[in-house]
């Protein structure tokens, strides 16, 4: 406890003296990753971050068709029998994140930040607001005016249509899970759920909301990462492209 107090005091002193502490973010570009593999990697990274073995880290990836429920296990919002999931080529997973049921799939950009909210000095509410802003800024780059949800409807909306979802877990001040931004996923998968437990609201994608030419998805994922870095104040980004890190140490 004493050690941490000294660290924080020194941090404040350096900052006050105008010695800017560089905020680093390690970005792992993982391509398409199975949900459970990504979860195992996040669990490992959370432990590493908690023991200061790594700096703040961000996973940038996509999933094969996957439905997930949060800690409240609101599987009643899955509208087809679980036995039919295999037929439509999807998996279902129970998670410890906040939020209701959602769908992840190809052409949906996902960011999983593994960062220390304590080091950043923000709480859950502020973190989620910045995650919303990240997606709002991304949409704005394509001329799409998105906004945060009303109370109880966290996420990013274009009018009454949801373009981005958030579901986060915070353990000892370290985040996992994150956000999902619809570039151009197969929206028919959303018909099999009550998305995020909010009935009568549509799900949309960037492709649907803009006539702009969309660049290759890899570029768009990088843009999303840049929006995140800008909003969260990271000034040093370390990009890594290594899909093998997903299976290292998880066997």
């Amino acid at each position: 406890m004493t050690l941490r107090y000294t660290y924080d005091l020194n941090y404040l002193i350096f900052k006050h003296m105008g010695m800017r502490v560089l905020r680093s973010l390690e970005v792992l570009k993982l391509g398409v990753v199975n949900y459970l593999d990504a979860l195992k990697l996040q669990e490992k990274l959370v432990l590493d971050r908690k023991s200061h073995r790594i700096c703040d880290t961000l996973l940038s990836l996509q999933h094969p068709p996957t439905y997930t429920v949060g800690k409240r296990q609101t599987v009643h919002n899955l509208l087809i029998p679980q036995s039919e999931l295999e037929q439509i080529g999807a998996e279902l997973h129970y998670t410890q994140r906040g939020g209701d049921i959602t769908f992840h799939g190809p052409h949906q950009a996902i960011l999983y930040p593994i960062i220390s909210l304590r080091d950043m000095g923000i709480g859950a509410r502020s973190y989620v607001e910045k995650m919303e802003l990240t997606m709002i800024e991304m949409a704005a780059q394509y001329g799409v005016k998105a906004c945060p949800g009303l109370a109880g409807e966290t996420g990013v909306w274009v009018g009454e249509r949801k373009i981005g979802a958030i579901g986060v877990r915070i353990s000892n001040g370290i985040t996992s899970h994150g956000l999902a931004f619809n570039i151009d996923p197969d929206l028919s998968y959303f018909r099999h759920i009550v998305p995020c437990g909010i009935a009568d609201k549509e799900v949309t994608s960037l492709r649907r909301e803009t006539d702009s030419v969309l660049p290759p998805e890899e570029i768009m994922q990088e843009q999303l990462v840049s929006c995140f870095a800008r909003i969260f104040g990271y000034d040093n980004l370390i990009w890594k492209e290594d899909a093998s890190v997903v299976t290292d140490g998880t066997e």
Partner: protein
Amino acid sequence: MALRLWASSTANVLKLSSAACRTHHLSSPFSLSRCFSTVLDGLKYANSHEWVKHEGSVATIGITDHAQDHLGEVVFVDLPEPGGSVKQGGSFGAVESVKATSDVNSPISGEIIEVNASLKETPGLINSSPYEGGWMIKVKPNSPAELDSLLGPKEYTKFCQEEDAAH
């Protein structure tokens, strides 16, 4: 020279915390009360923002006003069953707010003797009454000396101010 600089910086740091607060007032009228969250006397605090009230052989545990303010509206509380045990610094449950599930850690070790069943129907008690109606678990402490390693009200207040100023 460096030493004097450091010393005056330290003095300014403590002023800096309240200066940051004042700027916060200007940018958002609603933050006036939020800047100084309630910290109660007679309680002990963990730096993960839980409080503990030790009365005889029973210790009541919950999360602080600072914590509930930073979480936002609590919509779900995950609590353990009575009869289980907790370890100091270990997680015993979670609260969900704004699509974020945050683990709650126990400031002390002991046996869980009661959990607050009202939180199932009314999780918002954690926001409206973090030190009274929003209590989470009652524990029979098995190491009373652990309380000495926790923060007192003044130390916890300072800790919160520094954490909020540190960005």
